[in-house]
């Protein structure tokens, strides 16, 4: 594989990938149960609800209860998927997840929409930027942040086959679709999207598209960037990260999350323990978000392709 450019013909929200994936996995596995805390439409769970009403539990605005019920459903062999916004899927119910799900090793899939600043106009109360950190700190928790509609759908299907608690993070805005339809999703396996030799760009979630856009400009400037998708933040694919770093000797990480406690810190740990080299973390920096359009907010909080481009330039100087 060599350098590859990505384009798109359609935009779709990643939450719709979740909704369609849930419908798909529900058809094939009668043990799949969907739970929602009064956000069925926002989570795109209506199709599942209509098709499998007996396996859809409307919990009401009571997320703590939802997490507990999900934990209990696993006793008896059910595979519960909880659906609410990322903020209410994590911070609001951290202790319930910690004790009843993670410590008790329950096979619950915590599915979290509207993560990050691209939630947009609802503002900071809803734009969680700390959820990856909270979830990755829990022993035994798998943390996944897919990049587009197709990957989110594939991840939603794949986690049913994995036995253990999973945090699946996705978003609200319509976003370019640039990965293959009906792809196979491998938990914990990073994907090299474009090979390069000068710098490694590791990106998760919506930020992978931003990174691929940055790569195009870098290419024009004669910089060869390797773009790698870290869809699974935990367990982290250390082998793929280190293989790339051995070649490029510097890295930029990109996530729609606080750089304190996010994916970038996890990657920094792997790199500093194994093969220290210059690294720059792109993400929000110890701040809450605010109201605005998704693209305005991506610009404002240094999550644009241009900011990634500049970060690469900076890190290259330190090599």
């Amino acid at each position, binding site marked *: 594989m060599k350098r590859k450019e990505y384009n798109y013909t359609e935009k779709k929200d990643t939450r719709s990938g979740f909704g369609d994936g849930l419908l798909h996995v529900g058809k094939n596995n009668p043990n799949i149960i969907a739970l929602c805390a009064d956000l069925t439409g926002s989570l795109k769970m209506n199709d599942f609800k209509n098709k499998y009403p007996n396996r859809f539990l409307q919990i009401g605005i009571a997320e703590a209860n939802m997490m507990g*019920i999900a934990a209990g*459903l696993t006793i*008896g062999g059910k595979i519960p998927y909880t659906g609410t916004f990322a903020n209410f899927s994590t911070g609001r119910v951290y202790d319930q997840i910690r004790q009843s799900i993670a410590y008790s090793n*329950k096979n619950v899939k915590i599915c979290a929409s509207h993560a990050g600043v691209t939630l947009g106009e609802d503002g900071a109360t809803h734009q969680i930027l700390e959820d990856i950190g909270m979830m990755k700190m829990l022993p035994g928790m798998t943390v996944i942040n897919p990049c587009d509609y197709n990957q989110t759908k594939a991840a939603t299907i794949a986690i049913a086959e994995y036995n253990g608690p999973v945090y699946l993070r996705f978003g609200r805005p319509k976003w370019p679709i640039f990965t293959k339809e009906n792809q196979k999703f491998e938990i914990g396996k990073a994907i090299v999207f474009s090979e390069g030799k000068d710098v490694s760009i590791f990106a998760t979630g919506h930020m992978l598209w931003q990174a691929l856009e940055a790569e195009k400009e870098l290419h024009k400037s004669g910089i060869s960037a390797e773009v790698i998708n870290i869809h699974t933040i935990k367990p982290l694919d250390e082998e793929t990260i280190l293989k790339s770093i051995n070649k490029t000797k510097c890295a930029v990480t990109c996530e729609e999350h606080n750089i304190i406690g996010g994916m970038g810190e996890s990657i920094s740990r792997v790199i500093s323990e194994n093969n220290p080299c210059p690294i720059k973390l792109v993400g929000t920096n110890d701040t809450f978000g605010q109201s605005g359009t998704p693209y305005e907010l991506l610009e404002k909080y240094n999550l644009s392709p241009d900011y990634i481009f500049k970060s690469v330039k900076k890190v290259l100087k330190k090599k």
Partner: protein
Amino acid sequence: MSKKLNISDLENISSQVRRDIVRMVHGVQSGHPGGSLGCTDFLVTLFFSLMNKKKSFSMDGKNEDIFFLSNGHISPVFYSVLARSGYFNIEELKTFRKIDSRLQGHPATHEGLPGVRVASGSLGQGLSVAIGAAISKKLNNDSSIVYVLLGDGELQEGQVWEALMYAANNNINNLIINIDYNGQQIDGPVDEINSLKSLNKKFKSFGWNVIESNGNDIENIIKTITEAKTILKKGLPVVNIMTTIMGKGVDFMENSHKWHGIPPNDEQLNNALNQLQETLGDY
């Protein structure tokens, strides 16, 4: 264990379990004797007489009655009853709260202790889990019953009321909720800390059928659970407000929140053991 045990057999088991509790807590000089002693009669009756359960433990608990302890701090009584009913060797009670033990300070599944299906300790979570397990049973066409025990102080946690509202509205009628109504919590009487006022009325207004019972009278416990099952058969949700005496069975521990979470010293242990007959052999 068979259902042939009579009241006096169950009282004998309770006496031994109470010995286990004070010895375990004394042995490691930590743990919660008060609530454990108060709930001994209930848990013994449940595990040795009322529940239809399988001999060997499976996490899924399919086609058997299952129990959840939401007020996890009364782990000594839970562990003793689990061991005495055959889930694991009673010698393991010696390891309570010690390094590398399966008998953690608060119950956990993490070390694979048979009989425990979810961790508890952080209060207010067990009822939601029990509701999930009850729904799972319904979906599996499994007609057995889920039991859950909550402390009265624990009812100050908001999640409990989320769960109560949900279960009544969704007619979860294969679940018996039991409240350990001893009126005490760590800092003092529940009425002084944050009163539950008329608990019976609160439950009723949430859509529950309420039974009030005496949790330290084995005959009354059997009668109450039998009545609760009749209510479930009518398709209605039921809660059992079970008055208990914190520290029951050890005179100097009875009726005081002071013994919620402190262990007896050597002299107090001997005093307690003199009040509790060794019926099945100490571990």
